[in-house]
């Protein structure tokens, strides 16, 4: 896929030579207000988390209160990639291509324990956290998370978007894969994929 390596946007960095003035901050406020209240999700539901996501989208929890009722089943019209469920290695190039096809600005929610860390699937076939494949903005814990948990994650993402500024060019840089075809350095992927918690003592047959 891509061959250009770009730095990730980092907090605390000087983002612009121009000091923020009344006009740019008001424009930021307006743009962020519009963006955060009309996030169109691209649902990538692979497992039971998708059922909870459907419950969140249905009338009782009503995701449309946050401007997200328009499910975008085409990545070209999506703002938020919502990975609900475990990601097998066979689907890793698929979610990466969907992420690459989404236009900027774009965000990713990792819903549930399996998407965030591999969860109970510490085995040969499962990606140990989708952050080894695509950058993630909000991790929602739970197995699966209740709709309230997912809504809290969405509110956190809205909060994050309201803090962005147009003066930071890094948020619009497309984060492509490096020449190895990886998003992170191999040792970071190995570190992120280390077994943790109980799984160290379980089934260590390797």
């Amino acid at each position, binding site marked *: *896929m891509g061959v250009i390596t770009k730095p990730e946007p980092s907090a605390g960095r000087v983002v612009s030579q121009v000091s923020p003035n009344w006009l740019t901050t008001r424009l930021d406020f307006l743009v962020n207000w519009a963006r955060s209240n009309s996030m169109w999700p691209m649902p990538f539901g692979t497992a039971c988390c998708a059922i909870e996501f459907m419950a969140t989208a249905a009338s009782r929890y009503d995701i449309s209160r946050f401007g997200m009722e328009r499910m975008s089943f085409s990545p070209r019209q999506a703002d938020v990639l919502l990975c609900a469920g475990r990601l097998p*290695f*066979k689907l*890793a*190039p*698929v979610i*990466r*291509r969907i992420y690459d096809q989404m236009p900027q600005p774009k965000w990713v929610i990792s819903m549930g324990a399996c998407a965030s860390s591999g969860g109970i699937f*510490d*085995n*040969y*076939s499962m*990606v*140990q956290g989708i952050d*080894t*494949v695509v950058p993630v903005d909000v991790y929602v814990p739970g197995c699966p998370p209740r709709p309230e948990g997912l809504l809290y994650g969405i509110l956190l993402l809205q909060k994050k978007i309201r803090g962005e500024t147009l003066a930071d060019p890094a948020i619009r840089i497309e984060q492509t*894969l490096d*020449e*190895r*075809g*990886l*998003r992170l350095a*191999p*040792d970071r*992927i*190995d570190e*992120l*994929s280390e077994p943790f918690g109980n799984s160290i003592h379980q*089934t*260590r*047959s*390797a």
Partner: protein
Amino acid sequence: MNPSAETLQRQFGSAIRRVTESCDRTIVYVDGDRIREILAWLKDDPGEAYNYLVDITAVEYREAGLPIEVVYELFSLGRKVPLRVKVTLPKDQPLEVDSVVPLWAGADWLEREVYDMFGITFRGHPDLRRILMWETYAEGFPLRKDFPLRGRFSRSEQVRQALNAHPEAHYSLGELGIAESYHELPEDMRERLRRGERGQIAAPKGER
């Protein structure tokens, strides 16, 4: 005991190695070289009529000396009778058995799954390739006892190989349902579909 076992012993003699019973199910161990002949007889004989192949799977036991077994679950839809037929494959010989796709077309994907997970080759299968793992999967056969739970490669290498795979190439043109519109596809997609996934994954560049 299922009376079919006795009939089989009369019909095929020494090709029926052993008959046991477990949980009210009759298990017939048969000679691997004659499995297709025996299953064809079980399917077509009017007195047996095991016309439904429920499943094909395989078992590897924890004890290293025991052979791998291929299990055929049969069911007679007319007589409502199940029968389990097993073939043993010693590990010091090539893991090969005749395909039963000519008898049941539904055995196609079942045998591909057994090949994918256990590495058992089905002679005469029309399209024997991996079905659950992708075609360039190079770590081995995941349900074998000598396969480590987390796979043989490091996590970063697994992620690298997965991200370098071409999702379209997992499937044939027919499976994608685009065989007719092949000439309307973009050139790079046609190239990927022609090549399939059988090509080598490029070695990592740089110091790693």
